[in-house]
C-alpha cells in the first residue's frame, strides 16, 4: 500500500516527530515498502482464530492493593532535564 505525502506528515504529527521536507519522500518510499510487506496478511483466512497477545496465553496477575514502593522522587528527578519543588518543568501549557 502506497502512502501519500500528506499521510506521512499526518502520521509524523501523531508520533510527535518532525519530518523535514527533504525527508518526506524517503519516508514515503520506505513506509510504503514496509506496508507492502505486511499486506500479505490480508490474504490469510483468520476467521475463528483468536488473537494471540501472550505466547503462553497468560493473563495479567493481580496483586493486593497495598503500598509497596517507597517514595524516591528526589532520586528519580536527579536525571530530569528540569525540575522545581518536586515538579517536572515544561513550557507553559495553560495560559
Amino acid at each position: 500500500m502506497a502512502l501519500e505525502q500528506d499521510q506521512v506528515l499526518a502520521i509524523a504529527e501523531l508520533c510527535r516527530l518532525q519530518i523535514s521536507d527533504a525527508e518526506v519522500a524517503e519516508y514515503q518510499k520506505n513506509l510504503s515498502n514496509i506496508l507492502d510487506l505486511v499486506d500479505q496478511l490480508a490474504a490469510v483466512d483468520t476467521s475463528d482464530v483468536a488473537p494471540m497477545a501472550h505466547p503462553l496465553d497468560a493473563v495479567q496477575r493481580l496483586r493486593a492493593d497495598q503500598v509497596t514502593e517507597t517514595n524516591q522522587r528526589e532520586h528519580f528527578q536527579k536525571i530530569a532535564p528540569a525540575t522545581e519543588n518536586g515538579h517536572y518543568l515544561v513550557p507553559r501549557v495553560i495560559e
Partner: protein
Amino acid sequence: MHNKTIAQIARELAAGEYSSVEITQALLSRIEQLDPVYNSFITVTPEQALAQAKAADELRAAGQAGIWTGVPMAHKDIFCTNGVLTTCGSRMLGNFVAPYDATVVSNFNAAGAVCLGKTNLDEFAMGSSNESSFYGAVKNPWDLERVPGGSSGGSAAAVAARLVPGATATDTGGSIRQPAALCGITGIKPTYGRVSRWGMIAYASSLDQGGVMTRTSEDAAMMLNVMAGFDPKDSTCVDRAVPDYTATLNDSIEGLTIGLPKEYFSADLDPAMAQQVRAAVAEFEKMGAKVKEISLPNTHLAIPVYYVIAPSECSANLSRMDGVRFGHRVADPKDINDLYKRSRSEGFGAEVKRRIMVGTYALSAGFYDAYYLKAQQVRRLIKNDFVEAFKEVDVIMGPVTPTPAFRAGEKTSDPVSMYLEDIFTIALNLAGLPGMSIPCGTVNNLPVGLQLIGNYFEEGRLLNLGHKFQQATDWHQQAPAGLV
C-alpha cells in the same frame, strides 16, 4: 587469560590460580587495547569492575564464595545499571544514568559477578547489523568489513574477540541468535517469560526476551542459571521453578527426534550453509538421534506479522521518550508540542522513527483491526505450526541466517532487505519458544550457525544438545585470526 571460558574461570578462581582482580585487570586492558577496532562497548566501567573484583576476592578469602564470585562478564546496554550510563544505543538516552538496576543486573550482582561494562547495540535493539547505534557501528571480529549482526552485535563481537567470556543480550526477532551465528559464538534466547524484563528497556513487550551470549553451551547454562526465574515486578514473567541447567548438559540424546522444517531449507538459504547445517544434524544422528522432515507452513508470514506487532508495540513503548522526565531535551522549546517533537526528532535515529511511524499508523483509528488484530491472529497460526510439530519431534533444527555475515552498508539503504535477514529467527519470538545458535562450520572463513528450537521451557534440552555437539566437535573453539 582472555581465552578462558566462564566455567574455567570459575574453577580456577576457586582453585586460587589467580584472583578476580587479576583476571578483571587483564580483560580491562585487553578491551582498552583492542576495542577501539571493534567498538563493541559503549561504556567500560573499570572502577566499578575492579571494586566488584576486590569485593569478590575478599568474599573468597572469607570462605563465602559462590560459583560466580569474581567471574567477569558484561551487560548489553539495554539493561538498566544503577549509577551507570544506560544508552540503549540511542542519542535519546545519551545522558541517562539509570537510577536503578534491572532484575537481570541485580541477579548477577547478587551472584558476585564482575561487570566490565555495557555493550553496543542497534538503537533501541532495532536492527540486524548493529549499524543503527548512535555510538557507531560494531565490527565483526572475523572480518572488519562485515557486520556482527544485531541487535546484540556488541555482546557478540566482545565475546568473539575474547574481550569478555560472556555477556547478556536480548532477542525480539533474532537479536541473540543472529549475531551469535554471524560471530561464531553460542547464544540462547529462552522461552518468553523465563527471564525478567524489568529494567530491560522495552522495544516490543510481547516479543522481547533476555538471554545470553557465550563461547560454550556450558557457559550459557551457567549464565542462564543466574538470570532465569520469576520476578513479581515483570507482569509477563512466568512463575515456574528453574532447573539447574548445568545438571543436564551431559544427558544422553539417544532416541531423540530432530525435526527439520522443509521451509527452512528453501531457496533463501545459501547452499554452502545448508550443507554445513545438515552435516551438524548428522553429528547428532551419530549420537543416536533420529531425523524427521517436518513442515511449518506459515513460516513465510512471520516477517509480515512481526513488522506489524513489533512497530506497534515500539510506538507505544517509546512514547515515554518525550524529553520531560529523563533523556534528551531540545534547547529552547517554544511550547510543549515543540518540546516533544524536536526532542524526539533529534533523539531518535532513522530506523527507530520508521518503526514508530509504521506502528502508529497500524494502531491508528480505522486501521487497528486490519493490522494489529489481524497480525495477532496470524501470530496464533504461526504458534500452532510449532505446537503441531512438537507432537512429532523433540527438537527442531535449521539454519539461523540465510547467509553468513554481510558487508557493512550492504542493506542499510533498503530496510525491507535488512528485515529479511531474520527470516528463520522471527517465528520463535512470535510463538514465544526458546531458541539457540551454536557455531557449526564456516563458509569462506565466516562462521555458520545451527539453530536449535525447543518446546516451551526446554532450555535445558537445548543446552544439553549444544554441549554434546561441542564435546564432539571444535567449531566453538575456532576464533577470528590472531585472537586466541
